[in-house]
Every structure is written in C-alpha cells, then in structure tokens.
C-alpha cells in the first residue's frame, strides 16, 4: 500500500497522513461490523431463548423484531447518565471505556481468512492472553469506584472467577500450541489442514468451551450478576452509556472467544473437506459460520442450565480443570514425543 502511493508522490508528510487515514478506515471497518454483530447477537439470543421457552421473543419492532436491537441501543443512548454521589468520578467513568477498549483491542490480530487481518502478530496467542488478563481491571475498578457493596462484591467475584479460569485456558491453549508449533494465529489455522484439532483434542475443546463460559461471565457461571443476591453485580450503579459500554464489551468478548475457539479447534476459515463445492464458498464465510455455531452453543447453555454456586465454581476451576488440563498437557506432549510428532 505504501508502494502504491509512492508512485504518485515523494512527500513524506503526505505519505504519513495517507497511512494514518488508511489505518483509521481499516479499524473502522473492524469496529462497525463488530457492533452490528453484537446488536444482532442480543436479538438472536432473545429469539433462541424465547423459542426454547415456547415464547415468540421480540417481534414488534420491525419485521420479526429485526429493529429491536437498534431501538434498545437508542434507548440506552438517550437515557440520563447518573453519577453516584460518593463514587470516585474519574475511575468510575474510565472503567467502562477501558472494558470496551480492551475488548476491541483483541480483535486486531484476528485472521478472517488467509489474507484478511489487521496485523499478523508472531506472538498472537500471547497478545490475546495479555489483553484478556487486562480485561479484569475494568470490572474490578468499576466495582470499587461505585462505592456500593453490591457492585464491590460483584466486581471481586468476577475478577476471582476470570483469573482462576484464565489459568486453565492458558494450559489448554498450550496443548494446541504443542500440536501446531507456533504462536501465530494464522499458522495455527494452516497447521490444521490435515485434521481439525477438535477431533484429537475433543475433551480439551469441551474444557475450553466451559472455561470460556466462565471467562466471559456467562451462565451457568454468571455469578457476578446473580440477580438474587447482587442485583446486577459490578455494573449496578451504571446507567445509559456506561452500562451500554459494559454490555458491548461483554458481548464483544463472547464473540471474540468463540472466534478464538474456532481458530484453535475448528480450523478457522478452512472448509471441512477440500472439495470444489466447499472451496467455492468464501473462506471468511466458513469462519463466520463456525463462530456462529459456538455462539449458539453459548446461548443454548444459558437457556438450559441453572446457575452454579460460587464455591462450586471455584472448585471446578482449581480442583478439576487445572489438574485435568495439566494431565492433558503431559499426555499430549508424551504422545507427540513418542511418535516424533513435534512440528518443526
């Protein structure tokens, strides 16, 4: 792209401006579809849960309720922003912005097909882990700054939950890295050309899925927003845009983690069989299709299972998933070692 403009001009400032504008447009082309995807994820969630519970779901605004998310978003925009009297205003305002910003940041390395990504980082997985571990701060800080008992307890719960499940997620990811031999997301997908990792590593996929439910505070692990005890958790005191940003951040993280599990286990953009008919469908559509399957699984789990108790949740994380994923790590590396299967 830089060489393209070099044909026309030699002015360094002009080239610099051109690159800046290009990057801006590129990032907008990520953010806007993402926000639309979040809006319609909420709609599909309400529709699916409605049909599971034998209701219709939202069907008044627009055809089949298709304009419902837009109406919801507008409502949140127009509402009054209220700041609690005893809150720490600066941190109170920073926290939702931080949450949404970090949720968007992680998308910078997501490859949608072989040529389509914002940046192709060599240590992509590490970047993802770093960003997701930073996401805790938005929650814990908002809980503290609200100066309310409910918000504080919700924030602490949520942070403890996210930290404990991050450990097992990291260990599960190491298994995939052992098989693929790279930290680059694109090369992880290309390493799955012969077999998707979901087949040899199916138990790990299940564990990754359950851990990601806990990581994104989804039910059955939605302890932070346990309505019965904590009202709504860390975002009790937030209204209007603050709440909307938390909401957007949460759903961005859900889509992100389903995209990541698509890349790690379901071979990203690769079609299931290497035949003409499947190759004819564009690769990024395969990617979106697989991501949507996992998203629907997320919603299905929400409609089907009751909420865990908090000590059960922590026990599941530290006493069951952590030893099990460590054992799988030993097993995977042992098998790879004995059959000389380590990638070069």
């Amino acid at each position, binding site marked *: 792209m830089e060489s393209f403009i070099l044909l026309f001009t030699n002015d360094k400032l002009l080239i610099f401006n051109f690159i800046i504008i290009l990057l801006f447009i590129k990032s907008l082309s990520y953010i806007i579809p993402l926000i639309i995807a979040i809006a319609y994820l909420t709609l599909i969630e309400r529709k699916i849960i409605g049909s599971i519970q034998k209701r219709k779901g939202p069907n008044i605004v627009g055809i089949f309720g298709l304009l419902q998310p837009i109406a919801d978003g507008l409502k949140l925009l127009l509402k009054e922003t209220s700041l609690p009297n005893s809150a720490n205003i600066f941190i109170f305002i920073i926290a939702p912005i931080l949450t949404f910003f970090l949720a968007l940041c992680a998308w910078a390395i997501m490859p949608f097909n072989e040529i389509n990504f914002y940046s192709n980082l060599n240590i992509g997985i*590490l970047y993802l882990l770093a960003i997701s571990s930073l996401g805790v701060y938005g929650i814990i*800080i908002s809980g503290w700054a609200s100066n309310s008992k409910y918000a504080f307890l919700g924030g602490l719960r949520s942070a403890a939950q996210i930290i404990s499940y991050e450990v097992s997620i990291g260990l599960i990811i190491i298994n995939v890295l052992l098989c693929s031999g790279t930290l680059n997301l694109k090369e992880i997908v290309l390493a799955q050309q012969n077999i998707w990792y979901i087949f040899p590593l199916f138990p790990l996929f299940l564990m990754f899925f359950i851990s990601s439910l806990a990581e994104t505070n989804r039910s059955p692990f939605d302890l932070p927003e346990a309505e019965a005890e904590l009202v709504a958790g860390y975002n009790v005191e937030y209204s209007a845009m603050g709440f909307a940003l938390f909401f957007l951040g949460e759903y961005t993280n859900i889509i992100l983690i389903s995209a990541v599990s698509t890349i790690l286990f379901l071979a990203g953009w690769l079609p299931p069989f290497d035949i003409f008919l499947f190759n004819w469908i564009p690769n990024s559509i395969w990617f979106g299709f697989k991501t949507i399957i996992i998203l629907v699984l997320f919603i299905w789990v929400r409609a089907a299972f009751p909420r865990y108790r908090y000590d059960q949740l922590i026990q599941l994380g530290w006493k069951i998933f952590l030893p099990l994923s460590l054992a799988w790590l030993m097993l995977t590396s042992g098998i790879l070692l004995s059959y000389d299967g380590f990638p070069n």
Partner: protein
Amino acid sequence: MIKLVLFYFFSGLSLVSASIVISVKNPVFSVVFLILVFFNVVGLLLLLGAEFLSLLFLIVYVGAIAVLFLFVVMILNLKFIELRSSFFYYAFFGSLIMAIFLFEIFIILNSDLTFASSYFLERKRIWVQELYSYTNLQILGNVLYTSYSYLFILSGFVLLVAILGAIILTLYQRSQIRRQDPNVQVVRNFDDTIRFFKFLK
C-alpha cells in the same frame, strides 16, 4: 526520531508514576499507578524489540500480580494512611535496599555480558540468518532449553516451594465444621432418610 521520542515518553512517564505510587495517600490509587509503571516498562521493552518478554511481563505482572495487590488493598479497605509519621521510619532501610540494588545494576553494567558468551562464541553461525530469520521466541527457547536448562528447572523448583508454602498456610482446618460432602449427598436415599411413624390415639 520517533523511537527516541517514545523512549523519553515511556521512561519519563514511568518515573513520574513511580514517584506518584509512593506519594499518593489512597492505597488503591498507588496500585493503579504501579500498573501504569508496569505498562511503561512494557513499552520500553517493546522499543528494545523484546516483544515476547514484554508481553510475558504484561501477563505476569499486570495480569496476575497487580490484580492480587488490588484485591488485597480493596478488601482490607485501608483508607488514607498517614504519610508523614511513617516516612522517616522506613527511610534508613529503604535507602539501604536502594543502595544494594543500584550496586547490582552497576555490576551488571560493568561486566561484559559474559552470560551469553557460550552461545555467541560458537563458530559456524550464519549471523545474517540468525538476525533476520529467527523470532524472539525461538532465540529465547534455544538459549533457555539448551545452555541453561538446569537453571530453568531450578527456578521452577523455587516457584514450587513458593506454591507449597502457600498451600501449607491454608491447610490448617478447624475441626467440627459442617461441610458439604457430595458423596454423602449422592448416597442418601429415600429409605434411610424418611421414616414413617404410626401415632397411637
């Protein structure tokens, strides 16, 4: 040029926020500024080209250790510690520790980086290839798992000792506590738990 500006930006901001950490009264704010220091150090490491180390630093320090700090500070609810009474109390030991660390830094700066010599002095290395074709990760792994594998395992044992210590601290349990035992709950059945009595009139 941009690198120089960024270097001054990161190092200056890290110094400023490090001084805020010890001067601000609210302990939660000082932890937040500590996180800012970590961020700036990550920026400095990125400028050096050590992207793997910088991200690892971010994950370990900011993602785990600082969160625990924040946890403890928030739960203890330490409000506004009086600064002046304790400032000169710690001055002597603080300056002593600072002197020791400064001394160590000077030792490292004066030595000629001999720790890497066995790796670099090997012959038959194609330096151009090493410079441009290996990633940060490969070079680090090459050194860590071959020349320094013993030290690597040794540091693992140090961490293991720390984990064992933490577990032993929490192992103490009071007796006579009612606990939930899933096995007992599963084994319970209708005949054992509910009995019918006949009331005689």
